[in-house]
């Protein structure tokens, strides 16, 4: 009677332990399987990876013999520096020299003798997705052998790419994807993207380099490797309502006059619509010689004299004409859309929204302050190839072809300009727009701004800089709203010094 068939405490403990053990075993098994097992034999480190077929993809000026597996012999490597066969392919208005097998692949794809599918990911707004879909269809019709699977915008693209590469998932992960260039450092360091110079000889790289604006091309280069090709750029510029401002101001003094004319807070009109955050205030920082972070030297210039002067200038000559109650994007955009401000400083992404309310706008670079040129940040949209693609030679070549075609085909780039307002970076397209400047006033204005711009730093360290700078700006703005401009001017030095200190701490720690 006392020994009921019930669940005793021991039984419960036993069940829990068994569950834990099973779960742990399952996890360990998954861990072990997912990692690529290092091959015990001394595979030659000369070939790109152990999984690609050994047709030498690295045809180049170097030796054409594959490296021997036996490490004892020293005389097998004869250096036959035969110049490889290079053929040319034509994309748009460009001719690019490419290695023989790549050329063969391109011909096969054109004739439909081969069948490859690659995945293409973007993370974009709906109107941009439509333009991209059109481009993808054009590519597929020109190269029937390659199918590009593009399903619209991708959520959490960076995490999905990383997860796909970690899981070695060739079928479902993107083979080609695109975003602004500031991801390059992080993706390259983590081994998530493929350097194009691993599979293309110097001649190809040379030909590619001459096709784009140097600003844009260099955004795809990181630590001597070329990781991606640029197809568009964005930077903030001065957008003015053509009905309130007939010709865009050529100097900052002119702009200030306009701002003074329209600034009347009692009437709910303001001189300028301009959101304040570290990215947006950068032109004023650089105008006075300041900077946040230097990619090459790794130095942080948040509390340099130039930066401090730039922010002080911003407070005295820009903030004074703004609606400082809410300096966020939505509110400032609203102010401009409702015609309460003559000008707005923003990027191409806002143009569709602005055009809904204000049909006539002018776009120009932010005007110089005396002889100081304000240089905003630019984001260069790059096309990268993910690491998993290396496993399949055909997919790899298809991806390289797609990346090259997308960024070099003049008709494609022009259609992107017309349909979605993307600002091109290929030299021939930029020249075309300059010759037809009447048809493309907005794009020309942004091109002007981009040519002044400084590409965002690629280094992953930059991620640690944005936060403290945003905090410093916030503190300065808080002082401005509570105690007025003079107190804000005094707070600048301390706030930027604090930010500098915390950045240096987090970079070293």
């Amino acid at each position, binding site marked *: 009677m006392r020994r009921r068939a019930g669940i005793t405490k021991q039984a*419960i403990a036993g*069940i*829990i332990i068994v*569950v*834990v053990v*099973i*779960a*742990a075993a399952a*996890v360990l098994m998954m861990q072990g399987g997912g990692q*690529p097992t*290092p091959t015990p034999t*001394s*595979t030659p*480190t*000369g*070939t790109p990876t152990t999984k690609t077929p050994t047709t030498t993809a*690295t045809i*180049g*000026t*170097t*030796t054409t013999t594959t*490296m021997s597996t036996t*490490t004892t012999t*020293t005389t097998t*490597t004869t*250096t036959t520096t035969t110049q490889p066969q290079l053929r040319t392919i034509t994309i748009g208005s460009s001719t690019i020299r490419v290695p023989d097998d790549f050329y063969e692949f391109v011909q096969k794809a054109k004739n439909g003798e081969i069948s490859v599918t690659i995945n293409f990911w973007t993370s974009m707004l709906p109107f941009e997705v439509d333009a991209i879909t059109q481009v993808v269809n054009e590519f597929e019709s020109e190269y029937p052998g390659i199918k590009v699977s593009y399903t619209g915008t991708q959520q959490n693209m960076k995490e999905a790419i990383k997860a796909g*590469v*970690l899981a*070695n998932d060739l079928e479902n992960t993107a083979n080609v994807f695109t975003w602004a260039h500031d991801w390059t450092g*992080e993706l390259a360091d*983590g*081994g*998530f993207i493929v350097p194009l*110079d*691993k599979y293309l*000889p*110097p001649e190809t790289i*040379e030909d590619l*380099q*001459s096709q784009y604006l*140097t*600003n844009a091309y*260099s955004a795809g*280069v990181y*630590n*001597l*490797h070329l990781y991606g090709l640029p197809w568009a750029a964005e930077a903030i510029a001065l957008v003015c309502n053509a009905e309130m401002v007939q010709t865009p101001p050529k100097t900052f003094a002119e702009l200030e006059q306009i701002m003074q004319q329209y600034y009347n807070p009692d009437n709910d009109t303001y001189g300028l619509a301009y959101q304040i955050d570290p990215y947006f205030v950068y032109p004023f920082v650089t105008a006075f010689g300041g900077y946040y972070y230097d990619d*090459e030297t790794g130095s942080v210039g948040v509390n340099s004299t130039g930066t401090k002067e730039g922010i002080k200038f911003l407070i005295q000559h820009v903030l004074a004409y703004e609606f400082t*109650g*809410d300096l966020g994007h939505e509110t400032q955009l609203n102010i401009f859309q409702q015609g309460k401000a003559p000008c707005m400083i923003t990027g191409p992404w806002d143009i569709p929204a602005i055009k809904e309310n204000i049909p006539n706008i002018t776009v120009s670079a932010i005007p110089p302050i005396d002889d100081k040129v304000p240089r905003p940040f630019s984001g260069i949209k790059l096309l990268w190839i993910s*690491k998993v693609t290396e496993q399949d030679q055909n997919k790899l070549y298809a991806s390289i072809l797609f990346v090259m075609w997308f960024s070099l085909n003049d008709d494609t780039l022009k259609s992107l300009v017309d349909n979605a307002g993307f600002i091109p970076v290929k030299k021939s397209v930029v*020249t075309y727009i*300059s010759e037809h400047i009447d048809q493309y006033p907005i794009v020309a204005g942004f091109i002007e701004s981009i*040519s002044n711009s400084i590409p965002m730093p690629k280094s992953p360290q930059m991620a640690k800089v944005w*936060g403290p700078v945003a*905090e410093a700006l916030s503190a300065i703005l*808080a002082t401005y709203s*509570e105690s007025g401009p003079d107190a804000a001017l005094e707070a600048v030095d301390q706030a930027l010094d604090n930010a500098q200190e*915390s950045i240096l701490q*987090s970079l070293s720690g």
Partner: protein
Amino acid sequence: MGKVRKLVLFPAKVALALVLPSLVLYLFFNIWPLIFSVYIAFTDANATNIASQPMIAELEKVRTNITSYLYSNKDSILVEVSRAKEYINQTIDGMEELLAYINSSAAITYDDIDTLKTNITASMTRAVAIVVSNETMLYYYPGLRDALSTAQNLIYSMWSDVERIIGFSIIIPPDKAEQIREVIAERSPAIIGNLSLAYEELTAIEENYDSFVKSAVKDIDKQIDRLSLHFIGLGNFQKLFSDSRFPYSILKTLLFVVTSVPMKLALGVALAFLFSSNLMSGRKVMRALLLIPWALPVLLTVTTWRMLFVPDTGVFSSALSRVLGYEFNIYYHEWDAFAVYNIVEMWLGYPFVMTVTMGAIAGIPKELIEAAYIDGAGVFQRFRHVTLPLAMRPILFAAILTTGASLQAFMVPLLINNGGPQGFLWVPGFKPVSGYTNEMMVLYGYKRAWIDQEFGLSAASYLVITLIFLLYALVWYKFVYRRGGR
């Protein structure tokens, strides 16, 4: 007969049997994340080293073979080294030609610049191709890599500036030509300097091949180390308490508990009492409406509250500004935001208290209330001396649970103003630092993980927070539950 069996409604074993399946399922699905989170708290996990397995595997592969490979292919590599030196020399020559051209009195034309640029690009690209090639491994010689990389970046920035100055024009007017001269003259020394440095590094390889091999191995080791997860023991916990931010967040959370819990209780109990009386008509409908804070998603409701308090345009904030006489601003004033947190938390928390109290009040025998009424007690006296004491235990229970909710405050500070205005934080005994003034402890951990991408630090902070909760539960159990009787 033996032990005396306690008279209970259900034996404990039945309760355990009902709970066991859910416990097992919970552990099964969460055991790995739980163990992983605890493990991470003792490492220096951050964005670069948390998911770097493929890259590390690749580098390891290179590492195992590199020494033998470099020695067995020494001859071919040295040939490449001399070719690279040739190309670098050509690049330097190209740069000097460019300098000579712009310093000459001849006018600058676009075509000439383009030709010079093509030459420089051609030789530079080939030099770089040799260095990054898998077959020479020269990439792993840090001095060479850095010098060449710097030279390349400087060359790019020089051409960017030249392109900016030339703009769209084919013919270059004299003033622009002057700007181009300046830009090129300014950049060239550094470019040539770095190229010469790269040349010297290559010569060093030729002269001392062994030291090249050693440096290459060291460089790969360094790269692998940077990408690896390191076990740092209690390092994260030390970091947490090295400055005032985390202690401040704990103290602020405790303050929030002290202010919000009485408010929640007061409102919940008052409303429960109000709706328990027979005086209110349609009270069933009113009861349902009051449960809206419970039923709607927190994200939606708290964001709506935020819009009501936005400075200048929000309804409540402008009303409050008029009443209080100063500008009520949740973005710039710490205590304004704190007050709003309390109001919103009170709105979110009272349905639970109200429900529990109404249940308790319903359990009070009617005769007691009637007896008090007959004795001449007024409404408030009946409430204070009869209803409240009898409903005390359930209310206490509700208070304990709602304190737990306040301790976990995360959505409210995040959605109202992202942790409050920036300010100067100082807790006595810790280093003063600037940070967010309304950052509660759970929000602190969230920011470390999502904004700073410091996963190790965040996991450590959550371990500390869990400890605090356990302590709280222990206090509650020992002093309230036990003492309250079996």
